[in-house]
């Protein structure tokens, strides 16, 4: 077009980014990406390759040499060898390496960005302005945490060797999110990049060499899901960190069950984008652009469900209809492209078929006119309007540039719709009313809530999900705890399961028969089974009966706990008062409880008295914490705040050990309810009577009904029912190792947050163990609420 013609059309023309430096870089590597193990790129004698495609053209970009299982083995060994020395470095020494990596990323920023866009298909604007700067930021920020670790995380040490598996949607950024905190905390890593996008990981490896990072600290194994499985299931690793689909996350949870590996999962989402009638609608429209038409909608936290208040629904959809026309779909390397290529043909077909299903179910299709590029994998920005909650596309993650919309009438209906999903990753709330915004934010089940903004990400603020979006946080102080463990763990010994005593004919009788029932919804109720379980002391004397709880009792208890959820909204002060009161009431009956402990466990009078007084003290400890376990305000680079709020998990299952029956029960229940959870507890199978005696203490301590529910019976089967229950948000298990495995396995189906002792016995009497900070951390989850401000 000549200038005269352009003056008529006023088109933008093209502004292609020069790809030759990136292609030259690939050429110098003979268009081959190799595993990186122990500081070296691996060369196999009989290498097996697969192609990596440029999704914008469908053409081969490079070939990937797939790692073998023995590569995985070597990588884990290298990481193991490197871990001790790496952890022994001072925080400052590690900080210097991370700082060097951050600087090198900035130095090579354009090369990273161009390679990323070539490999992934994302617009160069995003890789250049968002991905790569966030990567550098992540390493800078965590260089700081390395420097401060000793001071800020006392009593903590590295987890060890971490196996990490990352997705293709933000190849380099997800690598940074995984590697930076792991290294900062003194771990070494073996990371598997996504098979579709391994190139920038290779450049990162080069940078590790340039930074002089000790060999084996970072290892990369390339390949498909089988290599990922080989890595996550490898015996030599201490932790798995996975970002990807909920489906694979579930598999990893099940397969790592009982391995003792620490686990974080960052999975899928169907995040709500809520627009109230007093929002700045034009800004909310741009929020939608950032939410679902960012990275082709291939974003786990994409705001993919638009919930719009009825009075403005039509107007807002009209505005979106208009806005969608201006989005430019095309060459990712063109600087004026808004929407680049879908990662591959499979994903494109998935998107197409899901949209078709949405249309079949009655949605209205809104897409811009115009042709898509003839080559490569492209899909236009799409709005499916007037979708029903029952519609498949309203529930399933599409992972493409497809927004579904529905309307709501009131704030409470907005919350109801927002939470009507199996996921809980992110949410965006648009209103100019701060009362409304701050009311909604805590009510939405999501690890991240953006108020009047969306998809803000930063190293200083934790990111991660609830429900089937996974558990664990990446970024911020809260993210560090995924890569450390308490130092006392290494000194623990396996639990000794005392053999069940052999019943004899002796009976310890009391004056009047006391029958321990179950404690559900604030009432003592008979077990559904109609059976009682005989309880014997260690010498085999019958000392009483407890109810034989079963599946239905667990179901009833979970329902009662669910009904008691308003406990989470009560003030910390109120919860403190009640916990103190429990301690007080226990104290007035201390002798009775000590007698019982002697009777059930045959312990000495002194030991029994000590357990009771420790239990009273523990109630006081968590009464004290109830109004003091504060959140943080993170320093994120916006004019505004990111509020890291510590929220209760919701309904928790607590499975208590046999040892220290009263104190262990207290040590688990007290922190859980102090933080606002309602709990379903399964006490020790052998020694439940100290716990059933507590019913009367609870009843006289103003504890609202349903906050603590207790089901006695066979611990293993009750724990299994709890772990499988979709209405239970988190479960703690203290018992033998097979029990830990069972709980972790059974919890996989709804990606329940678990905390198991892996068969190790902690000393409940030692405050550092039995009342460690870990109890509070496990009783809460951090929600980051981003609130930009300014008028």
């Amino acid at each position, binding site marked *: 077009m000549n200038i005269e013609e352009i003056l008529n059309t006023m088109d933008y*023309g093209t502004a292609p980014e020069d790809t030759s430096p990136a292609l030259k870089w690939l050429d110098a590597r003979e268009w081959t990406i190799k595993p990186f193990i122990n500081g070296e790129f691996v060369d196999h004698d009989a290498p097996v390759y697969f192609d990596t495609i440029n999704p914008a053209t469908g053409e081969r970009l490079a070939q990937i040499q797939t790692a073998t299982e023995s590569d995985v083995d070597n990588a884990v060994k290298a990481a193991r060898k490197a871990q001790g020395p790496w952890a022994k470095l001072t925080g400052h020494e590690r900080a210097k390496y991370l700082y060097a990596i951050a600087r090198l990323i900035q130095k090579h920023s354009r090369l990273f960005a161009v390679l990323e866009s070539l490999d992934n298909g994302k617009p160069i604007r995003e890789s250049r302005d968002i991905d790569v700067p966030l990567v550098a930021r992540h390493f800078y920020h965590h260089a700081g945490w390395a420097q401060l670790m000793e001071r800020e995380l006392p009593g903590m040490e590295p987890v060890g060797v971490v196996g990490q598996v990352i997705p293709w949607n933000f190849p380099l950024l997800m690598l940074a999110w995984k590697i930076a905190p792991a290294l900062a905390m003194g771990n070494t890593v073996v990371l598997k990049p996504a098979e579709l996008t391994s190139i920038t990981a290779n450049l990162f490896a080069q940078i590790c060499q340039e930074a002089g990072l000790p060999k084996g600290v970072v290892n990369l194994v390339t390949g498909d899901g089988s290599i990922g499985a080989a890595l996550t299931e490898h015996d030599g690793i201490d932790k798995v960190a996975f970002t990807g689909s909920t489906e694979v996350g579930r598999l990893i949870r099940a397969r790592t069950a009982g391995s003792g590996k620490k686990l974080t999962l960052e999975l899928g989402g169907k995040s709500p984008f809520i627009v109230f009638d007093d929002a700045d609608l034009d800004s909310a429209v741009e929020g939608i652009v950032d939410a679902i038409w960012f990275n082709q909608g291939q974003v786990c936290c994409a705001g993919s469900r638009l919930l719009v208040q009825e009075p403005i629904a039509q107007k807002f959809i009209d505005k979106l209809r208009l806005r969608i026309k201006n989005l430019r779909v095309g060459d990712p390397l063109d600087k004026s492209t808004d929407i680049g290529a879908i990662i591959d043909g499979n994903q494109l077909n998935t998107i197409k078929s899901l949209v078709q299903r949405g249309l079949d179910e009655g949605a209205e299709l809104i897409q811009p006119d115009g042709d898509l590029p003839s080559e490569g994998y492209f899909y236009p920005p799409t709005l499916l309007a007037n979708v029903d909650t029952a519609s498949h596309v309203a529930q399933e993650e599409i992972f493409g540039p497809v927004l579904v919309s529905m309307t709501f009438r009131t704030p409470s209906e907005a919350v109801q719709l927002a939470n009507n999903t199996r996921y809980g990753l992110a949410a965006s709330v648009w209103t100019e009313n701060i009362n409304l915004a701050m009311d909604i934010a805590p009510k939405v089940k999501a690890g991240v809530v953006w108020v009047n903004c969306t998809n803000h990400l930063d190293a200083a603020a934790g990111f991660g999900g609830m429900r089937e979006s996974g558990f664990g946080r990446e970024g911020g102080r809260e993210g560090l705890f995924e890569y450390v463990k308490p130092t006392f763990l290494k000194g623990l010994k396996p639990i000794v399961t005392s053999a069940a005593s052999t019943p004899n004919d002796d009976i310890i009788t009391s004056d009047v028969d006391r029958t321990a029932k179950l404690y559900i919804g604030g009432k003592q109720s008979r077990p559904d089974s109609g059976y009682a379980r005989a309880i014997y002391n260690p010498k085999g004397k019958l000392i009483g009966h407890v109810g034989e709880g079963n599946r239905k009792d667990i179901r009833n208890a979970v329902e009662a706990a669910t009904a008691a959820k308003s406990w989470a909204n009560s003030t910390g002060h109120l919860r403190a008062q009640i916990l103190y009161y429990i301690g007080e009431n226990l104290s007035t009956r201390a002798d009775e409880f000590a007698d019982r402990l002697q009777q059930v466990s045959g312990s000495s009078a002194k030991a029994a008295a000590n357990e009771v007084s420790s239990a009273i003290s523990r109630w006081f400890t968590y009464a004290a914490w109830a109004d003091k376990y504060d959140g943080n305000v993170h320093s994120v680079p916006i004019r505004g705040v990111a509020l890291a709020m510590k929220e209760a998990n919701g309904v928790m299952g607590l499975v208590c050990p046999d040892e220290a029956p009263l104190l262990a029960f207290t040590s688990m229940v007290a922190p859980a309810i102090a933080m606002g959870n309602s709990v379903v507890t399964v006490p020790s199978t052998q020694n439940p009577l100290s716990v059933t005696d507590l019913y009367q203490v609870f009843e006289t301590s103003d504890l609202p009904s349903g906050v603590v529910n207790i089901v006695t019976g066979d611990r293993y089967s009750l724990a299994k029912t709890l772990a499988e229950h979709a209405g239970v948000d988190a479960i703690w298990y203290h018992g033998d190792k097979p029990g830990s495995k069972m709980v972790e396995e059974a919890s996989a189906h709804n990606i329940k947050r678990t905390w198991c002792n892996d068969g190790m016995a902690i000393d409940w009497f030692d405050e550092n163990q039995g009342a460690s900070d870990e109890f509070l951390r496990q009783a809460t989850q951090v929600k980051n609420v981003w609130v930009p*401000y300014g008028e």
Partner: protein
Amino acid sequence: MTYQSTVHLLEEDSATLKRNEGMPLDLDWVEAVQANKSAIERRAASFPARRSIKKNFQAAWLIKSVECMDLTTLSGDDTANRVRRLCAKAKQPIRADIIEALGLENRNITTGAVCVYHEMIETAVHALEGTNIPVAAVSTGFPAGLTPHILKLKEIEMSVAAGAKEIDIVISRRHVLEGNWQALYKEMQEFRQACGDAHVKAILATGELGTLRNVARASLICMMAGADFIKTSTGKESVNATLPVSLTMVRAIRDYGARTGFAVGYKPAGGISKAKDSLTYLTLMKEELGRNWLEPELFRFGASSLLGDIERQLEHHITGRYSAANRHPIG
């Protein structure tokens, strides 16, 4: 209605667009206006990052910037000769050899208007005789707008009589700051009436309105009262045209158009001195309002030093060498 009428405004042939006739004051609408500063800033910052205009396209867009420029002198030391020189530049804003190299000899490129104080109108009209370049006059006690209302109306009438085709009025900022929307509406209506056939641009002095919400409200009211253009600043406030303010005003134009079917023009003024900035502003107009707002009928820059930078960039486009200011005639 909303969607269709917006599409009409944004996409139909500009020849069918009607001059703004105004509408009754709708206070409910004004009060309901929202403007979220952080979100607006985020969007505003995205324009230069989301769109890149290179090579011939950049040259064409820079020419467009020139054609949409109100070449301006508003100084206490303006003289007739100074204004004549400016008018000469308006008639031939770009060196002839550059125009030739761009292949635009037949286009008769001029600036959109020349903008002066009332006292300089006659000089400018005379100097621009035989061209289609309108003379715009700042008015109504520019820049503070604190002369008696009756004199403001008189000033407009005199300027129109002197040959000004466009009148850039300043609003009484106090009406906004006091929330006296009725007064603002009435003031603007009377200004419009006094202008007659001359087009009226309402200068909001956004740097003095305190909040983007006020900017949005004042924009709506001036449009309801019949403004042909809304304009950011006098160039004399400490903060003049910015992208967030522009986005706020342009969104108000879009909403007003959707409601009434009238296309109102936009003029950012003050502080736009780089060629690259002018591309960003044009991008903002195209993205938010569409192709029709890339013509002088609906878009103007108020600028004095922008032209020089554009000329240098155009010379660079042709020669591949960076130019210097002394190689281009000053205006």
